[in-house]
């Protein structure tokens, strides 16, 4: 035995009184203050659990679910894919605007892939209703703006954090980063150009030529809007991208013609 150990001398002798004390304490009636204290501690733990869930765990769970949903959507679209009409990738198809809350496209942004999580691949639904689109974990398309590939502005909105946090990493885009919009027809590739910060009323970002009202558009722009700063709704953060190229969905090509950069993601392979 090492000298200086904290083992109390004569432990055996004190064991019995200790047990008796414990028994006496157990019989003591429950005090109001004691119960109140336990209730408050429990409430504190619940609040911490909620915050951990809302700001971290939920977005991971939802991100993985949305990825699975988008992969399934891609499979369904591949099943019904037919060879594109001649003209190949020179023709940029523009779909009809779908019904409200209907999912019609998926967003793929390789820059937003995070280690240990499913690659960034999430559905876009029509409309920006809070209850029927955004809080259902979707990205929402502003119905007043153009469709993917259409000359003008394809503008979408989503939550920055919580509810899946679809645009959590919007501020981490680098100039030239590819933003892909997948639809039944194929993949629209945009390149990130710049960020802008506006007031919540800054609807100029939705103009066919953003911030230049009344001008006939000649370019195809994508606009992403979310709230800023984190956990606040004081401002809106806006990311713009310029259209580069269209990849038609083509059954004769590997990955049905998906861009090589995101082929594994859309097929649900690797991560």
């Amino acid at each position, binding site marked *: 035995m090492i000298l200086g150990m904290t083992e109390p001398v004569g432990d055996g002798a004190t064991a019995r009184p200790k047990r008796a004390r414990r028994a006496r304490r157990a019989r003591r009636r429950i005090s109001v203050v004691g119960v109140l204290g336990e209730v408050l501690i429990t409430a504190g733990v619940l609040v911490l*659990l909620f915050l951990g869930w809302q700001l971290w765990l939920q977005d991971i769970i939802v991100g993985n679910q949305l990825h699975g949903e988008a992969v399934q959507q891609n499979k369904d679209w591949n099943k019904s894919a037919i060879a594109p009409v001649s003209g190949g990738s020179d023709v940029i198809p523009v779909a009809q605007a779908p019904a409200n809350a209907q999912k019609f496209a998926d967003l793929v942004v390789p820059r937003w892939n995070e280690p240990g999580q499913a690659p960034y691949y999430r559905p876009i639904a029509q409309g920006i209703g809070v209850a029927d689109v*955004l809080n259902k974990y979707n990205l929402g398309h*502003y119905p007043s703006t153009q469709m993917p590939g259409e000359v003008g502005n394809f503008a979408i*909105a989503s939550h920055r954090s*919580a509810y899946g946090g679809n645009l959590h990493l919007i501020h981490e885009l680098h100039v030239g980063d590819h933003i892909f919009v997948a639809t039944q027809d194929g993949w629209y590739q945009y390149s990130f150009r710049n960020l802008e910060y506006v007031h*919540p*009323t800054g609807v100029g*970002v939705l103009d066919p030529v953003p911030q230049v009202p009344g001008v006939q558009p000649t370019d195809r722009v994508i606009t992403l809007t979310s709230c800023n700063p984190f956990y606040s709704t004081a401002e809106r953060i806006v990311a713009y991208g310029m259209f580069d190229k269209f990849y038609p969905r083509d059954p004769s090509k590997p990955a049905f013609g998906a861009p090589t950069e995101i082929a594994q993601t859309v097929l649900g392979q690797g991560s």
Partner: protein
Amino acid sequence: MYAALWRVLPGPWWLRVIILIVAVAVVLTALVIWVFPAVQTLVAPQDVTVTK
């Protein structure tokens, strides 16, 4: 409160611990599936769009 719960539980200490672990797991699952999503609609920022 928790001391009372411990006394009410049947069986030896290890069985009580197992019962408590299961109970905590059930409570956490219920929170994540039903309670937290409901609370979230009351406290989280809802506005992410630009509007007039």
